[in-house]
């Protein structure tokens, strides 16, 4: 009888170990295990919406974005964009630099299209093609996490009181990143930092969100710094400004209207 009990206990310990190893081997499991495992969900959807509002303080309108590339403290490049955001989740990125002036990208839950004015073509791109060419529009074009991602898991951030870790997963394969690990301040909903992962679990880049500034009585984050990813040793600072809330014609967010 004692032998039977011991065997039974050993089997349970073995199964527990296997489950734990399996749990750790998944990116989500790793992310959670790195943090405190005490999970008290603080209305995560509302928290994510507050974070979205800090990045884009209106439903529909336009915003100017500068991407500044830094090697150390030296500025090695700068790209300028204008982002038009529709209230149904689509966005349109206008590229303003001389080398790509007139190029436009349409990003929606149905996919990504790039308009090239020199050839007048509207090219359909796969999510991973966003990482090629002028990759900046992939990051500047999608300002609201809740448009592209669902909350898969919530946990308290390790050693950071009042900070929650949201593990986001792409709603559809059209999102450029497969998974996002986002840390948010509970009190304000302010995003602090995020890690962006490819479908293979590879870390593509990380972001740190600057302190919020006031716009029309609302708090808005106007600076994000990206590091890591495919360009080692290079930081990209994304600076947003000239926020302008306005109603935009619907055709601007269609494939046919991309060339207009």
């Amino acid at each position: 009888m004692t032998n039977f009990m011991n065997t039974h206990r050993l089997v349970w310990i073995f199964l527990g170990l296997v489950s734990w190893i399996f749990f750790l081997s998944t990116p989500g499991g790793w992310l959670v295990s790195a943090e405190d495992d005490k999970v008290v969900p603080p209305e995560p959807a509302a928290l994510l919406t507050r974070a979205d509002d800090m990045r884009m303080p209106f439903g529909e309108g336009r915003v100017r974005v500068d991407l500044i590339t830094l090697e150390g403290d030296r500025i090695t490049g700068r790209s300028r964009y204008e982002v038009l955001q529709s209230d149904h989740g689509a966005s349109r990125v206008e590229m303003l630099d001389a080398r790509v002036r007139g190029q436009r990208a349409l990003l929606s839950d149905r996919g990504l299209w790039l308009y090239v004015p020199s050839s007048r073509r509207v090219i359909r791109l796969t999510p991973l093609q966003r990482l090629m060419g002028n990759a900046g529009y992939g990051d500047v074009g999608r300002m609201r996490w809740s448009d592209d991602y669902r909350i898969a898991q919530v946990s308290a951030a390790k050693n950071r009181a009042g900070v929650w870790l949201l593990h986001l997963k792409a709603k559809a394969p059209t999102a450029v990143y497969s998974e996002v690990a986002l840390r948010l301040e509970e009190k304000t909903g302010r995003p602090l930092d995020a890690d962006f992962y490819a479908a293979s679990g590879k870390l593509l880049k990380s972001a740190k969100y600057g302190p919020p500034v006031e716009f029309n009585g609302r708090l808005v984050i106007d600076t994000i710094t990206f590091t890591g990813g495919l360009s080692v040793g290079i930081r990209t600072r994304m600076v947003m400004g000239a926020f302008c809330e306005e109603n935009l014609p619907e055709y601007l967010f269609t494939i046919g209207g991309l060339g207009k």
Partner: protein
Amino acid sequence: MKRVISLVFLFLIEMCCSRGVAAEGLLTDDVALSTTVLSEMQITSARASLFNPGGLLGSGKTKVIGAVVLSPSVAGIRSRLRLEAARDIRRDIWIDPSAEVQELYTTLNIVEGVQATVGKSFLSWDVSYASRPVNFFTQGIDYIDIRDHRRRNSGVPMVALSWIGKAGTITGVVASDCSEDMNRGQWALRAQGHTGPAEVAALIRSRFDGLFGFGGTVTYVHGRSLELHGSLFLNRSTSDKGCKGAPCDPFSLFGPESSAIYMKKPVRYGWYPHLVFGGQYTTESRFNVLVEYIHEGFGLSDTQWDRLLGAADALNRTGFLGASPSAVKRNFFNIAASLRPRLVRRDYLFVRASTMWDEIEGSTGVLVGLADGGASLSGTLGYHPQWNWDVWVEVRRNLGPKGSEFGEVPERMRLTLMLRFLF
């Protein structure tokens, strides 16, 4: 005199460059000016072949090309003007400078979502890369320079009316048809929308002489890496488009007033499909592979191709028996021109791999003639820092067995170095 004109032209180009630098500061809501300054060196080597007997068309060329492409926009009227001057270094001669209005048009918003475009402009309806079955409104397309770095694309005079809605777009166009030698007019109607994850478009197009065709395009994205596309156009036309005279016999040599080899037989009407389907796959490490199969119904069959080779051979022999050397040269020049840049045979496979490392971008491609095994290899390497200039190197090499298209085409290799400034 030509030298003086060319020098003046180059001076004007330099003037435009310096103004282009300043132009960015002059942008307002109503007035804008973009400028591209291109400096290009093109080294071409030729081979002696059936179409270039004894190197009749020359053994090669080294050209230096300077061009300025101005894109002003004033009060809603947009245009693109290309000024070009070139010099043949080997022969030490200036090539006539040229000025081309590639575009001059305005777009009118009639009501929200309904727009009219009037003027010389170009539309691109294709979804494929190596060959464009539904390209009716753009001239100067190059299957290697697919993003038109050289700014060679040019429009056609047109009136286009578009309805753009959330469900899709309907466009009607009446335009000149510069792709045809006889420059007939044309009209086309296209409806574009989506069904599930696939983007689809259907279109009909007719020339003013009544010959018409229909077709469509489709694109589909699967997962995060794979894009598939297809483009088909069925054209009811004559078969004399692809290569003058080749499908019919006998060939005749031109007389003093005629321009090239011509056909004696009456034209034959039929349905000719032009089809491209393929896909591209992108990896997380930014490596992209594009594969396309091309079928061109106007292309030459094996019999017709052999007949063209035979005609070139006969022309070679006849030419040296009595015709003037300049007349023979002109005939061969016409045949060579009809071979390139248009693909003249029916079936091809195109494979292109590209990648990028920060500011460096590279690609390599091969176009294989499936009927004869000849191949046209290409490679590009570009460096584009995040400032207002970039530099490109491009190489093309035609090779293949004797009697194959890419084995017989006079151009053996072309190396191009290009520096661009964009303001």
